[in-house]
């Protein structure tokens, strides 16, 4: 399989709240650090991406936020204007009265119209080779299939017209496994794991984009090896830790209880991870990201996750 960062277009998705933007930010950071001119694009403009680089809010116009790292946020209206003027050579488009309104209107009725403008812009950056890698902080799991399948949807709905003519080259880029890949972010819990498996099926059936990797976020540390855990279990008996408590002058009960909580949580989560690994094609890499105990935003978090990604990718 192609190395994750050797692809040219990576869509990062996942259920809400699993850390999709964190992973996108860190993947792009790592790529730039490794010498690739990288663009990272936030699609659902929540403005969180800028926080991960501790930079001013991102806009549609790409801006260099670190060496070789460029960031932008998607704005379908601005993208449409750029698309019409650059690609379709439609002049004076900005002067045509209710263009934006018309667009919103048509987009609200026709699936794929809004999405094609997003996908089109990203594919275009890849086609024109403006960047070595484009990382997309894409829509959440519920919407990603509609986004990736937009060219097919447009092909079905629109029989003629310039938009239809544009879908061919996009499909080529999206369908080339060496160029484009989908990264799904999950956390080790029942719902995210099941939804990831469902999403994998849908992406396979309804789009031509390949699954490039799964990132499992917030994996709790393993506190003890097997022999150590036995020692810990003996420490859980209050009488066995008396000499320690006498020396320290306080109760260790909360500490022992907290360790038990971690051990139990890690164990129940490991079951979900095993289930996920067993169901996913063994050729698809799974990257495990540690649970961050400090505040999980800002550059510090981005660095830590980028380092963890780097280690998991074997760099």
């Amino acid at each position: 399989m192609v190395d994750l960062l050797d692809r040219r277009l990576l869509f990062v998705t996942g259920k809400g709240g699993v850390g999709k933007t964190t992973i996108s930010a860190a993947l792009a950071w790592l790529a730039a650090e490794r010498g690739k001119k990288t663009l990272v694009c936030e699609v659902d403009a929540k403005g969180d991406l800028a926080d991960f680089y501790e930079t001013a809010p991102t806009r549609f116009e790409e801006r260099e936020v670190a060496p070789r790292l460029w960031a932008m946020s998607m704005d379908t209206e601005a993208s449409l204007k750029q698309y019409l003027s650059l690609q379709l050579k439609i002049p004076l488009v900005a002067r045509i009265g209710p263009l934006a309104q018309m667009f919103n209107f048509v987009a609200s009725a026709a699936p794929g119209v809004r999405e094609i403008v997003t996908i089109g812009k990203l594919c275009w950056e890849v086609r024109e080779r403006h960047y070595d890698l484009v990382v997309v902080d894409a829509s959440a799991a519920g919407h990603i299939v509609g986004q990736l399948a937009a060219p097919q949807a447009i092909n079905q709905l629109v029989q003629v017209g310039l938009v239809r003519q544009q879908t061919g080259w996009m499909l080529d880029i999206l369908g080339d496994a060496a160029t484009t890949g989908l990264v799904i972010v999950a956390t080790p819990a029942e719902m995210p794991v099941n939804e990831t498996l469902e999403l994998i099926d849908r992406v396979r059936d309804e789009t031509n984009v390949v699954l490039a990797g799964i990132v499992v976020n917030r994996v709790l540390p393993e506190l003890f090896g097997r022999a150590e855990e036995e020692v810990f279990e003996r420490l859980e008996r209050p009488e066995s830790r008396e000499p320690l408590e006498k020396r320290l002058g306080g109760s260790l009960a909360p500490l022992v209880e907290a360790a038990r909580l971690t051990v139990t949580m890690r164990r129940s989560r490991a079951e979900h991870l095993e289930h996920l690994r067993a169901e996913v094609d063994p050729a698809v890499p799974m990257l495990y990201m540690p649970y961050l105990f400090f505040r999980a935003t800002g550059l510090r978090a981005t660095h830590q996750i980028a380092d963890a990604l780097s280690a998991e990718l074997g760099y």
Partner: protein
Amino acid sequence: MGGPETLEGLLTSKEIAIACGSGGVGKTTTAAAMAAMAAVRHRGKVLVLTVDPARRLASALGLGGFGNEEKKVDEEAFKAAGVKPRGELWAAMLDTKQSWDDLVRRHAPDATTRDRILSNPLYQNISGKFVQSHDYIAMERLYEIHTSGDYDLIVVDTPPTRNALDFIEAPRRMADFFSSRLLRLLIAPYRSRMVNLASRPFYQVADRVLGSQFLEDIAEFFILFQTMYAGFVERATAVERLLRDKRTTFVVVSTLEPAPVSEAEFFIQVLTAKRFNLGALVLNKVLPGYLLDEEADELAARLGDEAAELARIEGLASALDTDEEQLTRVLREVAANFRNFATVARREAGMRRDLQVRPQVVATAPELEDDIHDVSGLLGLGELIWG
């Protein structure tokens, strides 16, 4: 019965409870747990209307397949949990496509129009995706069920939306949409074939980009849809009125992580500003209170620093059937783990203080070891937040 300051007190005095919050905070589970508790503790019929339950939870509630109809949760499910409910628990899942079809059947002016809409390829393609249709249809269905008068309490799990509050605005937007000037502008030429000179460039671009056939398809669809305009707007207004009614309460669900908290804050602000009835805040997956114990944290620091020394306490290692080296490692892990989670717990406590505007009821549930996928799990969570 609890006072108004508990979730129990709140829910027993309302007819509709709407659970809202960002994804991944346990909204669906919380909604189901509240409904299950209400059904167990009180007489009457309780319905949980859910959008996207985890599969095992869905089957525990008897929501195996697809379909819109409400189903009674089997008494056996409660028996397995060792309780005999005083009321009845019903559950329903939202089927967007079917709900749209029902809506068309209700509002279409005649059978011909109805059939033309239902068989319009564009309609079939988009009834699942049309203008935040999930949001609107969830509220529409809530209205329909509430009007039937079949239930004493309806607990709604709101759909995951890009903007967490889309659903409360959905009825208004839907009404605006059908009365918009743009809709008339867009479909005008296909109605009259007379194109106003001033708007000609607009259509030319539209035709070039999208193709005229596609625009005609869209236009036909909207022309048909407009026949339902009056009924639709009236209905949307009624739905909005219900959401603002005193019998309806909003329950904001969150964890104490930064992103969900800021979303919850936003929620609380908007609900308050727009005069919806904010009833309760449920905080899920909260870490246990002992992690905030400062003495324990100091002890953990010392245990970590002095682990090697402590492991050499006479007879300790052998009593634990280990050696000093291994014991040192175990003690260090126990210490580091406590300090790590104490950091998270302190951050959570800070988040909690930051949630300035609060509803009357604030309920807290701990991080549970296992996912909830049966009625006894739901009741376990329910007991913790009920009051």
